[in-house]
Every structure is written in C-alpha cells, then in structure tokens.
C-alpha cells in the first residue's frame, strides 16, 4: 500500500514539475496536507478545541483509491492512486480533488470506520481542481457522517487549522498548523497532471500544517470543526508549505457538479494582468480598473473589438479593480459566473477616454477533449476543444489530437508523433472525435491493411501510412519464434 502511494506521489511530481517550474521557478507544488505539531506549546483550551474539531470532521473523512486512465503512452494505461476526501452530503457525496478522482474509472473508498465501499464519479472541475464522487452505500451497514462547510471569507491569518487525510496513504491522519496566508495567488498557467491548466478562478489558503502526497482532497478544518478548504497542493523541497482551495469556491463547484456533473462558465476570451506597475502609463486611477493584457483569437472579446491595453472599469455597472494579481481570480469569476449567452456591458478606459462595449458571452467549454485509444493502430487521440485549439494555435477544432503513440507500434513506424492533428483518414475528412471513431471502426472492421492519415504538424501537412500488413507479419513471426 505504501509502495503504491509513493508511486502516486512520484507521478504527480513529475507531471507537475514542468509547468510549475516554468511559472514559479522554484515552487514545486504537490498534493496536499497540513500541519506542524505544536501540541507541547498549545494551551489546554486549544487542545480541547482540536479534539472537538477532530470529532466533528474525522467521521466524515474518506480515504480514496481511484483507478485513473492515462493515454499518454498511446495506449490505455490504468494506475491506482491515493487521495483523501470528505463526505459533505447525507446522500454520500464526497468532495475531493479533480487530480485525485476527476478522471477515475473505478473508485474504492475507505470510511473512517475502516469499512470499504465503492464510489462513482459524479463530475469534476479541473479549473478549481475539485471533483465530487458518490459513495455506493447499498451494502454499508454503518451510519454516514457529514462534515459541515464553513466560510472561507471569514478566516484569519494565524488561525489554527487541522489537515486531515491520508498522507503517503496513511489514512485517518491529522496534522495541525495555522493559516499562513489566505490569499495566495498562483499563475493560471499551472497544470494538473492530466494537462489542464488550473487556478484561474481561485486563490489558495496557505498553511503550515504538514502536507504530503495522499492528503489531496482532504479537508482543512477550523477549530469549530468546519471545513474551510480542500487541501490540494504542497511544495516539494520546502517545510510545511501547503495550499487549500477555499471552501466558498468549493461550495459553488460542488453545487454545480451535483446539479450538472460539471461547472459551466461563461467565456469572452480575456487575459488580464495587475495594474500596479502600469497605472501611470495608462492614466488609470489607483484601485480602479482591470488591465486587458491579451485577447484570445476568435473570442467574443475580439469580436467586440476589445484590445490589449484597454482597462475595464465596470462590468454591468459594477466597478472592478485588479491592482494586484490577487484580485484577478475574482474578476475572472465575475465574468465566468454569468450565464453563457448573456450579454455583458463593459465600461472601458482607452486612451484615457471611457467607452462602453457590449460582449455576448459564450460557454467556456471543456479544457480537454475526450480520449480514445486506437488499439489496432497503436496510438491514442483526443477530441479538440476550443480551449485546446487556442492553446495549440490550431485554425479550428476539426480533426483529432494525438495524445500518445505506442513505442515500436504501427503508427510509430509510420512516423506519427504526439501532438499531430489527424485531419483525414484514407482521404475522408475528420470533423471531430465521433467522425474519427466511425472511420477507425469501419477500417478495422473491413480489415483494411493500409491506412493513410493526413496530419497537421506545426504548420505543415504530413502523410502517415499505417502499414497494418507489416504488423500482422511481425506478429506471425513472433508467434513462429515462440513455437
């Protein structure tokens, strides 16, 4: 068990390393936890508060072992990972991290009474790194406990907190610490192990409670026994730098996930930056306005003729401000929380003159598309979402994106590469994943021995021939040699 947990931790480290190094240079964020034991110096009243908080939340604590799917090697690979969670609804809903269970195929949970129950994925939201699973209590004979959510807006720096979960798979563990800061900002360019960017819509509660891999998804609890955050990250090579997603963000995400299986957001295609250093240059007033730094191509903001350098003073007549980066998530949420399709009114400062813009919002949509393994051809693809299109500088969402190519397989030999976009299969246009699966199934069923893929690689069109005859010959040779 310990062994598998260590493996999980390693997977997470390696996956995150690149993105986070790029963004923070030094800060390497990992799975959650909290706690520096300070028992010997705390007063008896605090000790009793800790006991009280423990008793209110521990019964709702869940040790989670999801089996997650990975297609990066070109074929479906399954891994068991370990994380934590907490029951927050009497129907058996458990909140955890998206990076723990958001892509789970099968989930086994161990409750605080050590009983194991299966669970199923309700849905997840990579942007806040939150997922909801539902316990299957049909064969469970105990009684389920539910933890209470607190209010993360009313927490204070220096306040005692408890982190609960399964650090290094050691279930039912508690660590103690304080809130180090309540508004830690991370660049939204940080990626989850599954590749999605995360953190655009939330800040983090930083705590010195000990955090280790396996704490992910577990609750950060105040001394009143209320969950004020979901532990999500820790810093590698540092002592007690842990980060939790504020519970008020979690409340909204879990509500949406239970209702719809996901969090739906509006999108207009804006990227903003803090004004602090640039107020003078743009003639903006202190604490007034949000600076647009970039606009996604083809986005509603571009269609509305907004441009980088514009300063948004009001959204639907509500004044907005982002002098500091810590104010950006709230601004992004203000737009994201509108109903997709709503028109929003922006008051914008341009060349020191105020102008009004109307922008029709659209649905943000999925960050990543659905995966599909082409077992017979030796590679895996995913559907291309609009966000992937923007990120990969593609002209549209047609085709499918190659997520992995199996080593020494037919596609590898044919020259297919990761990140190629397949536009045609044997001359037939591929509009999207459904089209592709249709073509794949048809070619496999007809036992077509040669398949020509037309792919886009960078700006170039390339032709990749899958010689399935050769594969069969090789298999026959292998079988012969075994005999």
């Amino acid at each position, binding site marked *: 068990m310990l062994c598998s947990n260590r493996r999980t931790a390693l997977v997470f480290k390696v996956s995150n390393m690149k993105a986070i190094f790029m963004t923070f240079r030094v800060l390497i964020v990992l799975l959650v936890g909290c706690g520096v034991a300070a028992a010997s110096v705390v007063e008896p009243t605090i000790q009793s508060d800790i006991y009280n908080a423990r008793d209110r939340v521990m019964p709702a604590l869940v040790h989670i072992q999801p089996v997650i799917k990975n297609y990066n090697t070109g074929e479906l690979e399954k891994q068991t990972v370990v994380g934590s969670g907490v029951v927050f609804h009497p129907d058996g809903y458990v909140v955890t991290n998206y990076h723990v269970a958001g892509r789970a195929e099968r989930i086994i949970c161990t409750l605080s009474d050590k009983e194991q129950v299966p669970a199923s994925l309700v849905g997840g939201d990579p942007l806040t790194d939150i997922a909801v699973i539902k316990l299957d209590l049909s064969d469970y004979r105990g009684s389920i406990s539910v933890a209470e959510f607190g209010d993360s807006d009313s927490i204070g720096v220096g306040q005692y907190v408890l982190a609960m979960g399964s650090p290094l798979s050691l279930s039912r563990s508690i660590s103690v610490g304080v809130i180090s800061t309540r508004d830690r900002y991370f660049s939204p360019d940080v990626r989850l192990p599954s590749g999605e960017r995360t953190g655009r819509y939330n800040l983090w509660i930083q705590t010195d409670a000990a955090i280790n891999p396996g704490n992910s998804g577990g609750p950060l609890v105040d001394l009143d026994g209320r969950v004020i955050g979901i532990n999500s990250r820790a810093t590698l090579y540092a002592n007690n730098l842990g980060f939790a997603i504020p519970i008020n963000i979690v409340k909204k995400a879990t509500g949406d996930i239970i209702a719809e299986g996901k969090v739906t957001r509006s999108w207009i295609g804006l*990227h903003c930056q803090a004004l602090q250093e*640039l107020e003078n240059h743009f003639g903006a007033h202190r604490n007034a306005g949000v600076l647009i730094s*970039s606009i996604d191509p083809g986005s509603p903001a571009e269609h509305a003729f907004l441009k980088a350098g514009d300063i948004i003073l009001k959204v639907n007549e509500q004044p907005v401000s982002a002098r500091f980066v810590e104010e950006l998530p709230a601004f992004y949420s203000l737009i994201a929380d509108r109903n997709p399709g709503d028109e929003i009114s922006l008051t914008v400062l341009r060349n020191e003159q105020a102008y009004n813009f109307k922008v029709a919002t659209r649905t943000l949509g999925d960050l990543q598309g659905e995966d599909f393994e082409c077992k017979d051809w030796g590679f895996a693809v995913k559907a291309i979402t609009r966000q992937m299109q923007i990120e990969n*500088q593609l002209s549209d969402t047609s085709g499918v994106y190659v997520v992995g190519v199996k080593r020494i397989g037919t596609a590898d030999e044919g020259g297919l590469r990761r990140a190629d976009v397949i536009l045609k299969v044997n001359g037939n246009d591929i509009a999207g994943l459904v089209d592709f699966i249709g073509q794949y199934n048809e070619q496999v069923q007809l036992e077509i021995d040669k398949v020509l893929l037309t792919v886009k690689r960078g700006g*170039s*069109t390339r*032709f990749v*021939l899958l010689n399935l005859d050769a594969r069969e010959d090789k298999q026959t040779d292998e079988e012969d040699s075994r005999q």
Partner: protein
Amino acid sequence: MKKTAGSKKSLILFSTVAVILLALMPLRATAQEFDFQKLQQAAEKYTVIVNIKIEVSFGMHSTEQEERYLGTIVSEDGLVIFNGAALAGESPMPSFAGYSLKTTPTRIEVVTMDDRTYEAEFIGADRFTRIGFLKITGAEGEKFEPVRFATGQSFEVGNWFTLYMLMPEFISPPVSVDIGMISNIVTSPEFFPLTVGFNQLQATSVLYNIDLAPVGVLGGLMNPTESMDQGGLLESFGQIGIPLLGVITGERLEKLIADPPHKGKPTSGWLGITLQALTHEIGQFWELDIPSGIIVNDIVKNSPAERAGLEVGDIIFEINGQQLEIDKDERIPIFQREISELGQGTAVEFTALRRTGQTQDTLTLLTTLQEAPMAATDAPEFESELLEFKVRDLVFSDYLFYNLDSEQLKGVVVTELKPGGLAEIGGLMIGDIIQLIDERTVLSTKNVETIMGDVETLRQDEVIFFVWRDNKTLFVNLKTDLL
C-alpha cells in the same frame, strides 16, 4: 604580417614520426607501401596549423578560448580549409527559448610548416560538411601552393589512405601520420566511402591514397533524421553522437572551394517548402508510377515554391530533368543540399505529380531559387546597456519554431538578460517577442535602438514593453535608473 624561420626541421620531423609509426604499426606491410617522404615533400607546402581565438557567448556571458586545427591551403590566394564544426553554428532553428550559443573567431593565425605565420580571417563554414574556410590576409601578391584534389577516383573496400594529424601542443613535431582503409562503400542515404583506422580529431585532414593522390578529406556521416538540425548527411563533430567517418570526395570539395560559404551572407538556394520522402509504401498506396520523390508538406508565402505554383501534396520527382531518388526521410538532405548548392538566382525546372481524386497530372513548374533565409545566429542584434537585455530580429526559423505567421506577429526576440539586471528584475523573459515599446511599434532591432536612445535622452524612469509570450500578450514595466 609574415614571419619566416627558414628551417628544414619539419622535414626531418615528418620523416622521424613516419619511421616510428612504421615500426610500431601492425599493418606494416601496407604502411610500407606509402612513400611518406614523397608525401611529405608535397604536403608540407600546403599543410598549415591554424590557431584560432574564439569568443564563445551564451546569454550575456562570454569567454574566450583557443583552438588549434590542422589546415590545408586550397587556393593560390590563400584560402584554407579546416574543421569548422565549432564555428559552423548555423542551426536553422533558434536555440531553446531564444538563447543562442555563439562562437565568433576573434583572432586567427595560420602557421606554415616552414614556420611562416600569417593572419587570417574566417570566411564561413559549410552547413553540411562542417568544413571551415579561412582566408590568409596580409600576404598581398604572394602565391601559395594549394592542394589539388584528385577527382574521378574510384573507391573500393580495402583501399588504403594516409593523412596528417595534429599532435597536442606540448609535443614536437606538431604533426604525425596515420593510416586507415575503406571498410564499406555506403550507397544509401548517399554515396560515402566509410573508413576505419581514423578518428574524429582528424576531421578535414586530407586523405591520400596509395599513389599519394589527395582524394578528399576525412568527414563524418550521421543519421540526418537524428541530428539536431537535420542539416545534412555529411555533418558531425559539433553534434551529439559519434559519426561514422569516411571520405568527402574531391568532387564535392572542388564545388565548395569554388564557392565557399560566407558567414552571414547566404548564397545558397532556397525553395521555401517543408517536405517528406515519397516512400515506396506511400507510392504504392497512391498507385503512382514513380519510385521516389518528395511530397510537399507546406509552402512558405512569397517563396519560389509558391511562385512556381506548387501546392501542398504535390510530389516532385524530377529536378532539371533528373530523377529524385528520395524514397526515405534519411535521403531528404540530398534534395536540400542540391537546392542549396544550386544557389540563389538559379532557374530550376521541377516535374511534379498532382493528385486530384483518382486522377494524376504531371506538371512542369519553373521557378528561380531565392536566397536562403537568414539564420538566427546571423540576425542583427541590439544590446541595451541601459536596461541590460539583448534582442535580435525575428528570422524565418522563429516562425517555424513558434508555429507563427510572419504576417501576424512582428517584433524582435529577447535573447539575453543580464542576471540581476533591470530587464530581468522588471520581468522581461528570454524568448519574449517585443511588439511595442512605449506604444511605439517594434519591427526590428533598429527600432529598439532608436527607442532606447530616446529613453536615455528623455531620462525616462520607466519603459513599458508589450510582449508576446507563451501564445499570449502582456505588458512589462521596466524601471530605468536614470532618475
């Protein structure tokens, strides 16, 4: 600058070394067939030692190092060839994130075997063979005795060669002989007689056959699909990996000597396509009558290929009536080199197949080759001492590297930041593409120079950069220390 020491000691030294080698060598029977004394008499006239001081810069750091090479005078007016791998530096792709490792010869000295010393200037290095070219200066009116490479030679396995090799500086005499033989006549990816008995340090040494005819120089063969810039077949020495050594023939050398590469002044021809080989499998799949050729993957705007009317998917199978024997990607450099060596301004006729549905049309297309785009290492640079950064003009390869459209993104790329300097502190990053400075458009390093001049004149305390980074734009405020 000429120094004569009129000594005949080198003759004695040559003979001594040759005799020692003969005594020691297990291949005595063959070695004795070489008339080393006769060879020495001929070779000492054009064999030289090249001492080069090279400035190596990476980021804002630079160091100077001294290199010694064995050189050979190849023209009466003092053109010298040597192993130019360290100075070739012509990777078509910009180095990672805009960093460029640059090598600039600062002082070159050529010493003849009779101890005359001349200054020389670096002309350029061939991208494919890595042969460097120097021109002796300060010897006006002096006629040198050059090597005259034998052409029309036939090569067979078992042919013996000898060459001169440079000894370490602490050893005297400075040159020695070595022998080796042809081990294989490689025919694919292209004709290349492989040798055994020689080593990489002997690269570009003249190879003499048993009749003492200078049949070529020692070169290297690497798999072009695995090399860093896929520059060509006969590249090596500056690359990762160990090349196979062999003969760069007299024919090829004569071409190079007649028109040596000039650093920063590309004279080679360029068509403006990306391409892949027409393999037998793809040819069969498309039911083509041609055995080989190249498939056009992409066409650069306003390039000779576009003017010729080529289209993506066309298959070029003849150039100037000559069949293109490109049936695997490893052979693509043959085509690239052929185009390169035809030179800019050359009219070329292509015969191509265009497939439309089930029909195939044969087209004859004419175009005039254009000058190859400037390499990143040759692009104009500007260093701002005020803000402590360096930029260079964007070049064609940047657009390929970033998958950008040259019409959409203009600017200069940040290549260097002084550690702890004002630009680094202000948040500029290597690889940023600067589009605007203080709202003024930046199209070239000249613009940056002008704007930074104005900043100093006006004694501005801050400068606002608008940059492209990671597929988005943002503003960067750099504080000067002018106030």
